[in-house]
């Protein structure tokens, strides 16, 4: 029975160790399947710790050998420098040491038992050890979430799920302490108490794995939403292109007629009339092809496309821009930033009755590309943490427009600010073209 108990304790400790190592050191991917690799690493570590735990009597030698086993496992399955592997192993053992003593301290306080009494009785030691490993697991899992931050898939799990996990972890600790108290009364471990304790522990682990799965699913949903948004933008582009082709076709038809008229005027010697006829025509051609020009092909394409889209909805776009031909920001980022912000402005203008004018500033000033969009609004738009909540039904797709802009800006050394009063909404982005902050 005691062997099974110690195996369970060592197994949990090894699982926590594997998670802990992965927080600080990237995996080598020695096995293609990540779950199999995780289990293999846990199995090797469990076997080594269990072996030294049961075969070596000297506490000091035992600790040293277990430490070396951790470094060895880290070396086999993780990619990092040796001093990092040693450091992480030492850190992990310090964590175990602190958590063990904390668990014993809690038991001593709660049940007025002395530490010596607990340490001397292997049966009594099982529960504090289990409580300790349980706290260790919650601790390591929490650490994994904190260290990975919003960059990893954990960032996709909502706070709601984390609260549920925290509450059920807390209630599990209470349940464990209750079972331990019950066992202390009998000064023996009833089998049912052992099974219940293990059940609570594995339940927590299952919840933790479920959270991981939720995180993966959420990440997938976000990626799908991104793709759907891109498809929507592509569809818009195709619509605008089709419209432009139709307009061009109409122009071609018109110009054919006009060339015929011109031919007849010149043929009949009416040259002055022919000249008068040509001048407004050339102006018409220039105005028809494009209205916004910055000498940057991608920026011009996006701005003119959005201008056509705005015109269709009775909205004017007033652009103040300079020569942007020297801008070297990746095209995809420019399209995301300019396209999304103008989409939002056009949409906001569609909800107002008069004064549908969007002002756009796109200039390179002092090594900073300033992109600003000002549009009228009916009522103040609530801004929370520099984001606005979408009012559209499909929140998965439409809520991420500004988030995509934020992401794109972060990839080209830029950031943005939002401002809104009773009448106007302003988006301003700074994209730093010269990295003059590098020295600060």
């Amino acid at each position, binding site marked *: 029975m005691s062997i099974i108990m110690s195996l369970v304790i060592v197994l949990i400790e090894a699982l926590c160790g594997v998670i802990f190592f992965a927080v600080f050191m990237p995996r080598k991917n020695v096995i293609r399947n990540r779950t199999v690799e995780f289990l293999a690493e846990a199995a090797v570590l469990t076997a080594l710790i269990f072996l030294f735990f049961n075969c070596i009597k000297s506490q000091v030698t035992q600790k040293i050998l277990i430490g070396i086993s951790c470094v060895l496992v880290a070396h086999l399955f993780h990619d990092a420098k040796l001093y990092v592997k040693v450091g992480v192993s030492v850190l992990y053992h310090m964590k175990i040491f602190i958590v063990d003593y904390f668990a014993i301290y809690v038991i001593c306080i709660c049940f007025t038992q002395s530490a010596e009494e607990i340490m001397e009785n292997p049966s009594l030691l099982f529960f504090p050890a289990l409580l300790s490993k349980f706290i260790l697991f919650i601790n390591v899992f929490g650490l994994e979430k904190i260290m990975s931050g919003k960059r990893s898939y954990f960032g996709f799990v909502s706070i709601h799920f984390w609260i549920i996990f925290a509450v059920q972890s807390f209630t599990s600790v209470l349940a464990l302490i209750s079972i331990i108290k019950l066992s202390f009364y009998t000064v023996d471990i009833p089998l049912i108490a052992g099974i219940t304790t293990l059940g609570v522990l594995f339940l927590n682990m299952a919840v933790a794995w479920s959270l991981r799965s939720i995180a993966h699913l959420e990440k997938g949903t976000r990626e799908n939403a991104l793709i759907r948004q891109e498809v929507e933008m592509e569809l818009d582009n195709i619509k605008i292109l089709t419209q432009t082709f139709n307009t061009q076709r109409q122009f071609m038809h018109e110009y054919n007629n006009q060339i015929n008229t011109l031919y007849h005027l010149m043929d009949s010697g009416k040259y002055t009339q022919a000249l008068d006829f040509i001048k407004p025509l050339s*102006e018409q051609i*220039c*105005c028809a092809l*494009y*209205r*916004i*020009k*910055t*000498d940057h092909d991608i920026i011009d394409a996006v701005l003119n496309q959005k201008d056509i889209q705005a015109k269709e909805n009775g909205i*004017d776009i*007033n652009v*103040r*821009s*300079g*020569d*942007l*031909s020297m801008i070297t920001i990746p095209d995809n980022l420019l399209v995301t930033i300019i396209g999304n912000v103008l989409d939002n402005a056009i949409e906001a203008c569609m909800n107002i009755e008069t004064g549908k*004018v969007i*002002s*756009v*500033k796109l200039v390179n*000033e*002092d090594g*900073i590309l*300033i992109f*600003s969009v*000002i549009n009228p609004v009916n009522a103040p738009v609530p801004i929370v943490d520099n984001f606005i909540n979408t009012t559209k039904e499909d929140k998965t797709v439409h809520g991420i427009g500004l988030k995509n802009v934020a992401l794109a800006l972060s990839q080209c050394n830029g950031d*943005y*600010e939002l*401002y809104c009063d009773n009448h106007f909404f*302003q*988006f*301003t982005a*700074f994209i*730093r073209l010269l990295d*003059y*902050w590098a020295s*600060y």
Partner: protein
Amino acid sequence: MNIVLCDDDNNALKILDHKIRNFLDRNKISYKIMHFISGEKLLHSNISLVDIIFLDVRLAEKNGIQIAAALRKRNSHFVLIFVSSFLEYAPNGYSVNATRYVLKEQLDLCFEEAMNSALRELGYFRTLLTFEFVDGAASIYTDNIVYIESDLHKVHFHFSGNHEMRHLYGTLNSIQRQLPSNEFIRIHQSFIVNFRYFIDAKNYCAKLIDNITLPISQRRAVDVKKQLYLFRGRI
């Protein structure tokens, strides 16, 4: 105010003239408007007292950009606004320090804003304040102040151009109360900065013209950045 309009299209000149008169009458600004239908004639005229030039781009002899470049060599102080039917010249238009490039088809939409911007550049909306400096009282235009720094009981005024720093005895709080709030911002307990010269804010540092770097206090950092972006994002 002396204004020059240059366009080979008489009809366009009339429309623009009407708009300018209407705007300046409303703002009670006295003016004199001169019309030119040829760029060459404008080049040979005296522009030393001209405040604003409205210039068409596609003119018969030379294009408006070339004319503007030649005029700029003689006088760099006038405000230049291009008014054209052709957009393809816009990027080059800004290379001769044009304030605005307005499309004729968008004249109704953009005229007022362009005029306001021109007046601002000409100093029509400047604020003149009098301070009791250590070396005597002086009236100064606030747009000449780059930043103000407090050092114990002394307050130092740093000006643009080659103007020397001046100082007075007082507190930064009392100075801040006198300054127009839409023009200046307190970035630190010891510094007030003019938005006009404020280039960027990042990592609790403010970057100003001439590579001046000042600290931004942690508690003001978020608001300073927001206000700076709001100011520089204005059209």
